[in-house]
C-alpha cells in the first residue's frame, strides 16, 4: 500500500510560539485519519502544512511521493487545485454564489472544461441536487457543510483535509456529515485527514492520533497504518 502523506519532523513556529514540534507521520492511501487534541495543540497547523496553505519552518511533507515543501508558491497553488480538497469548520463558502457555483468554482479555477456534470454529480453525492441554486446563507449549517464537501470533491482530489468539519453542527447533523464522509472515503478511495476533538467524529475514523503541544503523543505515527483498520 502506498503512502499518501508522509511528514518528517515538521516544525512550525509563529514567532516564539512553536505550533508544531517535529511531527512525523505516515498515512497510507485510502485511510481516514483522525487527529485529536485540545485547542492549540497544533491539529489545524498540521493539516494546513499538509494541504500546502501553510509552510513548515522545518522538516518535509510529501504527498503521494511529491515533496510539497520545496515547491514554489505557484507550484503549490497548482498542486492544491487538483490534488487536495479542503473542508473548513466555518464552511468558507462564497456567500454570493449558489451551491452549484460554489462547487463549480474550484473546477473553474483549475481550468476544467466540462464542469456542470461533475458539479451536479458532487451535489448529488452529498444529496443537495435540489438545492443547487440556493445560496449558502439560505441553507442550514449541515447543508452548507455538505456543499463544502461537494466543493472539496469537485476536482477529484486524492487527499481531503477536513478541519473540525462538525465543529459548528449539532449531533444529528454531525452524524449525517460523518456518514457522508465515510461513504466518500470508502467509495472514492480518498485519503481523509480530519482534525477534531469530538469523540463522536473520531468514532468514524480508521485510526486516531493525538496531539499535544505540537507533538503527536499517541497513536501510530511512524509505521504505515492500514486503511479501513
Amino acid at each position, binding site marked *: 500500500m502506498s503512502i499518501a502523506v508522509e511528514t518528517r519532523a515538521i516544525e512550525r513556529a509563529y514567532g516564539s510560539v512553536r505550533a508544531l514540534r517535529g511531527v512525523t507521520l505516515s498515512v497510507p492511501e485510502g485511510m481516514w485519519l483522525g487527529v485529536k487534541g485540545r485547542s492549540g495543540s497544533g491539529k489545524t497547523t498540521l493539516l494546513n502544512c499538509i494541504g500546502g496553505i501553510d509552510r513548515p519552518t522545518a522538516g518535509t511533507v510529501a504527498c503521494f511521493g511529491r515533496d510539497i515543501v520545496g515547491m514554489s508558491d505557484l507550484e503549490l497553488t497548482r498542486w492544491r487545485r487538483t490534488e487536495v480538497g479542503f473542508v473548513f469548520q466555518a*464552511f468558507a463558502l462564497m456567500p454570493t454564489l449558489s451551491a452549484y457555483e460554489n462547487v463549480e468554482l474550484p473546477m473553474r*479555477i483549475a481550468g476544467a472544461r466540462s464542469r456542470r456534470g461533475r458539479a451536479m454529480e458532487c451535489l448529488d453525492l452529498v444529496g443537495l441536487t435540489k438545492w443547487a441554486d440556493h445560496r449558502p446563507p439560505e441553507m442550514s449549517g449541515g447543508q452548507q457543510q455538505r456543499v463544502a464537501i461537494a466543493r472539496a470533491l469537485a476536482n477529484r482530489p486524492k487527499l481531503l483535509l477536513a478541519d473540525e468539519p462538525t465543529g459548528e453542527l449539532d449531533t444529528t447533523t454531525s452524524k449525517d456529515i460523518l456518514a457522508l464522509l465515510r461513504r466518500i472515503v470508502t467509495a472514492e478511495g480518498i485519503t481523509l485527514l480530519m482534525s477534531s476533538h469530538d469523540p463522536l467524529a473520531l468514532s468514524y475514523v480508521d485510526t486516531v492520533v493525538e496531539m499535544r503541544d505540537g507533538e503527536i503523543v499517541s497513536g501510530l505515527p511512524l509505521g504505515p497504518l492500514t486503511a479501513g483498520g
Partner: protein
Amino acid sequence: MRLISLTLLALRRLANQRALTACLLLGMTVAVAIASAIPAFVSSAQNRVLRRELADRAAGQIRLSGLAANTRLPLTFKFSYLGLGRALLSYDETLDLDAFMTVRIAPRLELPVVRTLRYASTDPWAILPANETWRRYPLDDSQPLGYGSLDFITDLLGHIDLDTGRLPAGFPGAPEVTDDGEIEVMVGRAFSTKTGIQAGDMISLTRKDTVRVAVDLKTTREVQREYNILARVTAIWAPKNRNDAYWIIRPEVLEQDLTLSPEMMSRRISKIVERQFSLMIWSYELDDKALTVENVAGVVDRANALSVEAFEKNEQLTLNQFEMISALRNYLKRSQELILLMTLFCAPIFAVVLSFVVLVAGMVVRQQEGELAILRSRGASPLDIFYMYAAQGALLALIAVLIGVPLSFGVASLLASAITFLQFSPQPEWVTSLPPVSLRLAVAAAILGAAATLVPALSAARRTILGFGAERARSAGRPLWQRAWLDVLLLIPCAYATWQLRQAGSLVVFGTDVSQADPFKDPIRYLLPILTLTAAGLLASRFVPRLFGLLAALVSRIQPLTPIFLALRDLARSPKDYAGALLLLIFTLGIAAYGASLARTLDQHLIDTIYLDNGGDLRLIEVGISNKPDRQPGIPGQAAADDTEPEYLIFEPPEGHLEIEGIKRYARAARIPVRARNAGNRRNEDKSMLLAIDREEFARIAARGLRDDYSYAPMGEIVNRLATRPDALLVERRFFAENGLTIGGKFVLDIGDFRAAGPVTYTVADAFDVFPIVAGSEADYETGNFFVANAAYTFERMGKELPYDIVAETDPAANVEKMVQDAQELGFIVINAYDSRSKILSEQQRPERQGLFGALTAGFLFMTALTVLGFAIYALLSFRRRAIELGVLRALGLSEGQTSIYVIGIQGALTLVGALVGTTLGVALSYIYVPAMQATGKLIAPVPPFLTRMAWDNVALIYFALAAALGFVIAASLGFLRRLRAFEAIKLGAV
C-alpha cells in the same frame, strides 16, 4: 457605572480599530472643513464685491471732483439743511435742529462714529471796504468786493494754516468774545488774493432782507431792512491738505466765506439778524472698517430710516444720497446676484459632503456589523450599542471640529484666491475670520457625521449573530430606494421641470429682474441640474449590476479571464456592498464635469461676447477730416446751406495702420445707418445697419468672434460669400425669411443721410443670425436689421468713403495706449479704442466673477477630493472585508497573481463604470442645462447664446486623480495580499 463602562468600551473600540477610526475621523474632518470653509469663502467673495464697489464709486467721485487720486473718501452720513428763500433759520432753530441731530440721529447710526463735524453758514453778505485803506485797490465803490457767508465749521484749526494774522476771537488761543468788542473773522487765501483783503483790514458786511410787517390789525406789507456789520479780518488761512477727508465742504468754497468762531456766531451774529442761517451740515464719519457684508443691509436700512425721520422733522433736512450709500445699495443688488450664483454652485457641494459623511459612516459601521452581532449575542442591548456609538461619535465629532475648523481657514483662503477656474492668484487672499454660519455648519456637519453612524449601528444592533448571517444572505437584494422606485419618482418632476426650462429657455423668468431672482423661493428650478443628476444617477446605478452581470457572462467562457469573471460576478451579485461608493463616483463625476464645463462655457462666452462686440483684438473708432476745415468732423453728406459742394470726409490711407507697432493686420468696418427697401421697393422706415467690411482681412481678424453657431453654416464660409461678387450682401436670416428673399436676388439699401440718401443695389449672397460688431451683445435686437457688404463696393457706389472703424489683429504683448498714440502721430483721428484683451482681463477680475469661479473651483476640487478619498476608504475597507474570501480563493487554488487581478478587477471595474456613468451624465447635464444658465430677464434671446464647451482637460484631471487613488488602493491591497495567509484569513470566521 454601566455608562462609564460602556464609554470605556467605546473608547477602547476606537483605539483598537485604528484604521476604521482614522477613516471616519478623516471623513468627518474633511466634511467639517468644507462645510465651514464655504460660507467663509462666500463671505470673502461678497466682501471683495463690497470693497470693489466702494473703491469704484470713490474713484468715480474723486475723478469728478478733481481730487487727487489717492484721496480717501470715508463712509459718511451727511445730513444737510438747505434753507433757501423764506426757509432761513433763526439761531434758536439751528439749536433745535442741532439737538435733534444729537439726540435722535447720532446715537442710532449703525456703525461706530469716528468723527462728527458740524457746519453752519448764513445767507451771503455783501462785503465792502470799511475805510480808506481800501483805496490802494482800484475798485468801484458802488460794487461790493464780493459776497460771502458767515460760517463756522467744527474742528477747523487742525486742518488749516494761517498765512498771516491771528485767529479770530473765540478760537482757542485767541481773545475771548465780548458783547461789545469787534467782530472778528478770517478769510481764505484765495479770497484774499482775489479781493486784496489782508489780515488786520476792517470790512463792512451788508445784507438786505425783505420782511413783512403789520401796518394795522388787518393788513401787512413788505419792507426792506438793511443790516450792517463792521468786522475785522484777523487772519488769512489756507487748507493744509485739500484732499483731506475732513472737508465736508470743499475748501475752495469755504475760502470764499468769512469764517468765525461758533461763539462769535452765537453771541454776536445771531443777535443782529433774526433769520439768516441758510445751510447747516452734520457729518458723521463712520468706521468703514466695521462695515461688513453682514451689516451692509442694516446700514442702508438705517440710512433710509434716518432720512425719513429727518425729513419728518424738517422738510429741508435731508440725508445726502451721495456715492457711498449709493454704492452700498448697488452692492446689495449685486450681492443678491452673487448669492444666487453661489447658492447654485455651493448647494451641490453640501449635498455631496453630506452624502460623503453618510457613506463613510455607513461603510465603517458595516465593517463592524459582525462585531455588533456578537455584542448583541453576548447580552448588549440595542440601547447599549446606541450609547456606545453616540459616545464614539461625540468624541470623533469634537476632534473633527477642533481640526476641521482651523483647516477651513486654509481651504477658504485657497478658494478666495481663485482668479478663474482652477487658477489661483500668486498672492493669496487670506481669509482671517469665519462668519457665524461657518461654525454652525461645521458643528452641524460633525453632528451629522456622528449621527450617520448611529442609524446603521442601530440597524445592526437589532441583529444577533444568526440574524447577521441571514442579513448577509440578503446582500444581493436591492437597496430601499430601488425597491421603492424613488429614482423613477424623482426623475418624473425633474423631467417635467426640464421641459419647462427648455420652453422658457432661461433660468430666470422673462420680465423679472435677475437680481431679484431668489433661489430659495424656487429651489427646484435652481437645483434642477443636481436633482436630475441625483435621479439619473440612482436610475443608472440600478442597471450597473446588470451590466456587470452581462460582462461576467461574456467573459465566463474565457479561462484566462477567470479572476475577471469572478470579480464581475461578485459585483453583479453584491450591489449593496458598493452602492454608496458607486453613487459617490457617479454624483461627483457628474457634478464636476458639469461644473467644469459650465466654467469653461462662461469663460469662453466672455471671450465670445467681447470679440463679437469688437470684431477683433482691437477696434479703433476713427473719423476723417472734413473737406470744409471750419466744420467739425462728422458724418458726411450734410450739404452746407451756403455751399453747393457737399461735405465729405478725408481719411488718411488706412494702410498706415500697419506701421503701428503691434498691429499685425487690419480691416475697415464701416457701421452705416441704412434703410432697407421692401418687396415693393418702398423704403422701410425701420432703422437698420450695414456693416461694410474688407472681407478678406476681416475674416482673418474676426476669426475668434465668428462662432459657427452664428449661422446655419460655418461663419467662415458665410463671410467668404462676399467674395463671390463685389455687390454681395449678407442678410439676417430672420429678415431673409420674413421678406421672402432669395440667394442671388437683388436688394436695395438707402445709405447715408436720408435727406440725400443714395440707393445702392446689392445681390443677396447668404444669411447669418449673429455677426460681429453689428449684432453683438449690445446691439438692440428689437429694432432694425443688420446687413453686411463689401466696403470697397459700398464706398464706390456712394462715391466717397464713409467713416469706418479699424478692426485689427494685434500682438498680445502690444500696449494699446501706445498703439493709439502711434495712430494719432500718423495722422489718424482716434476717438475711442476698444481692446478686447484688456476688457476680458478686466471682466475676469470682477469680484463677482471671481466669486463664481471660486465656487466652481470649490465644487470641482472638493468633489474630486471627496470622491478620491471616499473611493479609497471604500476600497480599503472593502478589501479588509474580503480578506476571508480571498483566503478561501487562495486555498481553492487561485494564485497570488490571479487573486491580485481579482482585486484589481473589482476596484477597476467599479471605478471605470462609475466614472463613465458619472461623466456621461455630466456631459448630458452640460448640454441640457448650461445654455439655460444664461440668466436674463429680457424677452429676447441673449446674444451670443451660451455654447456648451466641455472641459475635457479638467475632467481628465479627475480621471488622473481617480487613477492615482486606484493605484494607491491597488498597491495597498497588493501589499496586504502578499502578507495574507490563507489559513489565517479562513480562521477569521465565516465569509
